[in-house]
């Protein structure tokens, strides 16, 4: 149930209210709702859950997290 996926936004402004988007996950495309988010642009990655994007993935934070994996935490 909680399985949500990071998906790439490839088209925005769709649907009768203009808050739907076309997203891509590994080649599979789906129309989903951006009604819970503001300011999403084509090329952004969002967390998709049961038809709705819940959060935008921050690329800088993602990179920081990856770098933190090798941080042994030995502060001087």
């Amino acid at each position, binding site marked *: *149930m*909680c*399985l*949500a*996926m*990071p998906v*790439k936004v490839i088209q925005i402004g769709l649907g009768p209210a203009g808050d739907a988007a076309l997203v891509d*996950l*590994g080649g599979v495309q789906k129309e*989903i*709702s951006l*009604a*819970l*988010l*503001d300011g999403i642009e084509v090329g952004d*990655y969002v*967390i998709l*859950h*049961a*038809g*709705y994007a*819940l*959060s*935008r*993935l*921050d*690329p800088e*934070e*993602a990179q*920081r*997290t*990856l770098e*933190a*994996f*090798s941080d*042994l*935490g030995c502060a001087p």
Partner: protein
Amino acid sequence: MKYIDEFRDGAVARTLSAKIAAQLQPARHYSFMEFCGGHTHAISRYGLSDLLPSNLRMVHGPGCPVCVLPIGRIDMAIGLALDHGVILCTYADTLRVPASGGLSLMKARARGGDVRMVYATQDALHIARSNPGREVVFFAIGFETTTPATALAVLTAQREGLTNFSVLCCHVLTPPAMQQILASPELQSGGVQIDGFVGPAHVSTVIGSEPYQVFARQFHKPVVIAGFEPLDVLQAVWMLVRQVNDGRAEVENEFSRAVEPQGNHKAQACMAEVFALRDSFEWRGLGVLAHSALKIRETYAALDAERRFQLEYQPVPDHKACECAAVLRGVRRPQDCAIFGNVCTPDNPVGSCMVSSEGACAAHYSYGRHQEGVA
């Protein structure tokens, strides 16, 4: 796939595993609860327990909304399909949960109930629009991750004047459940040890990190919010070990790429508009909890299936041999249940923890039981 593959790198996992081992104080036992079923699933699927030292134990929590939903609530959904003749729309996870009278939603369908699986609330609304002469009810389950979607469905239905659509609301809340775990008799007596929590990933994108402060400040238990990928979980465990060693109890956010401290304002606003707190709600495993679940507000009463169809909740006990309640509290492991793997299997589930893909029993059956006896 971006944002997935790099968080599953095996070599980095081994580095993280070594990092954790290096931080452990040898004479000490560490025990952390991963609240969310998605994390239970990740830990099993990626064999993370094998990467953790023997003096660090992960305790499975109740964060699986299908698992904590009592039989009586499934009975209400079945009743809507079989007795009221509605089109009952549901997420797939609930279909095989055993309920009263040997029924499940799937079996109700076999008996002629119009039970339809949907991926999203948008699908349920579409069914309502396409079937103006039929009553359509959406069976709304889930923690705070799915609640905003249900809120939007209610608002959309009202705006469009969809008079044949209603919602059977069984949404539950994460912080009260975590609080109940800490208040449990087993924890108080020392039968179960919980030194901190791995906090849910996607629930936290909605509610933010602030709601967990009470566990740090009042209960002195560290909480580290973690993403669902295996490297996220390992990193979060390392952060918890460090907190415990330092004697700290703080809320930390490993899933910073998707979770902000204040969460998703729009989602929270929708939820507040449509839902109010129930005085009490029965959970499998945790008992009847106050202010732990949501109901539809008076303003939207016409869209509340409980009011519309005058449904009354009847509590129904679990099967006698089913240990789901204890598993959900973390006091028994799936393999401790007498019927695990013999009578109760994914093909023939007796309890909800074996049905749901996030249930501890299903996770252990699929990934964990082959490890037993392996040194």
